[in-house]
């Protein structure tokens, strides 16, 4: 039952999360901006459209939207969402999370190469490169958190006695949060790394890979990326807001407030910074890695 409540939450709230970010960006640009529910309308429109497939493509191209969506739905089950505990939690589930994301990434890359044109190949190449750095950052933070919490299960790494940890090694957690926030921006193709709003540009990473998808497939992919952003934010919130559970309603409110805060933070970053030049992105990611590593060193120092 818990599984379905999780899925319902991510299905309902993930596009809304994207809508809030768009609203914040519109506010900073001095515009009214689209409705909060615009992502839902977009998805609905895509689900009603017919699809066009390239002659070059094979089954891989058609399978990718399904694999991506399934991967993020599985990922969602590993993360506690407010009052709802993670339905799937066991020692070592972080490897399941990382490798399922890896599987989706693998298929994403080969599907981009499947279209047989240079734009998609470009996106695939960039994705392959930046994901190497992202994976290092992810595991660096996992190591630090697991040392702090003495567990390698995602739920207890970001939950449990974190309030106590903030008192004991708040500095470590500040570094982890900073590093993880950059990771969220990078993994979900947000602005300093990638621009989610423009298509067809030579500078893009994520958007250019899905250039050839249309109709239902594109809808699946957009849904998947919205859910991925939501779930990553869901990992960050319990680290930032280590509030011990009071009751279900309060928990839900705290969770929603945290989500709102993260989406506003992402929106502010997107409105105030420019997208980095492509050969500077790896510096940003390396800084995030160095942050995580610094956190690990401080954790070891503090014992």
């Amino acid at each position, binding site marked *: 039952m818990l599984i379905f409540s999780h899925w319902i939450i991510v299905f309902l709230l993930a596009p809304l999360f994207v809508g809030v970010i768009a609203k914040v960006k519109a506010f900073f640009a001095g515009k009214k901006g689209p409705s909060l529910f615009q992502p839902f309308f977009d998805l609905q429109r895509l689900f009603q459209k017919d699809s066009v497939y390239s002659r070059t493509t094979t089954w891989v191209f058609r399978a990718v939207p399904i694999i991506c969506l399934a991967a993020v739905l599985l990922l969602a089950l590993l993360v506690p969402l407010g009052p709802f505990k993670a339905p799937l939690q066991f020692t070592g589930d972080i490897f399941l999370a990382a490798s399922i994301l890896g599987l989706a990434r693998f298929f994403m890359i080969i599907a981009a190469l499947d279209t047989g044109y240079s734009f998609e190949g470009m996106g695939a190449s960039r994705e392959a490169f930046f994901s190497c750095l992202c994976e290092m950052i992810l595991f660096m933070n996992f190591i630090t958190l697991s040392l702090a919490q003495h567990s390698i299960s995602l739920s207890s790494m970001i939950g449990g006695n974190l309030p106590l940890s903030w008192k004991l090694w708040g500095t470590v957690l500040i570094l982890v949060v900073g590093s993880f926030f950059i990771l969220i921006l990078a993994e979900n193709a947000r602005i300093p790394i990638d621009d989610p709003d423009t298509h067809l540009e030579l500078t893009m990473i994520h958007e250019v890979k899905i250039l050839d998808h249309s109709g239902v497939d594109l809808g699946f992919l957009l849904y998947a990326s919205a859910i991925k952003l939501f779930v990553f934010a869901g990992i960050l919130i319990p680290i930032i807001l280590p509030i011990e559970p009071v009751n279900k309603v309060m928990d839900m409110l705290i969770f929603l407030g945290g989500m709102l805060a993260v989406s506003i933070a992402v929106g502010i970053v997107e409105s105030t910074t420019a997208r980095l030049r492509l050969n500077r992105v790896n510096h940003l990611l390396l*800084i995030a890695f160095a942050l995580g*590593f610094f956190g690990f060193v*401080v954790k070891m120092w503090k014992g």
Partner: protein
Amino acid sequence: MTSWVDVICITVVFLSLIILSNYRVAAMIRIFAIQSFVLGLLPFFLHAFCISNRDVILGVVTMVLKAVLVPSILFWAIRHVSMRSEVKPIIGLSASIILGAMIIAGAFWVSLSLKLPGKPASDLILPCSLSTVLLGFMIMVTRTRAVTQVLGYLIMENGIFLFAVSLFDVMPVLIEMGILLDIFVAVFIMAIVVNHINEEFEKNPASVTFSKMGETF
């Protein structure tokens, strides 16, 4: 326990790392100003309940000098020298960041076996000051521009300041003030020297390579 001193320590080290990974001189100076400002906050948090006059003087002087005056002199220097805005590191920025991270780890490693005479306000002060000094050194070693050399030197000094503050009760405030004055004068002289080098080369347009050399030491 996590204290504000801890937070300031890691912020200082992190900002040095950011300076190391930056490629624009102006941005480097700006981040240095932020770092100095954060460092200037440190005396206010050292003695949580009784902020003495000494703390206030030290903090305010540091902020005014290093977060306002020194950066503006540096800005003045780079404006007048009409140099290219990007630094030319000897080793790449990516390698610098990785090396910087390793230097931090090394500083922590060394600090394990170093003992301080008194008990500092936070156990992070010693390794963080050591890391900052080493990172400043690294900036001096790997960057070729005159201004970046000075910046590296200033970051080193920031590291020493962090260390000195932990011995604050032992050390007279006069010495720290003297050091701050020295730095101010050093930066001032540097700015004038850089300016003169540039003027010399502009007067004597021997070759393009010579005028480029003016930007480096």
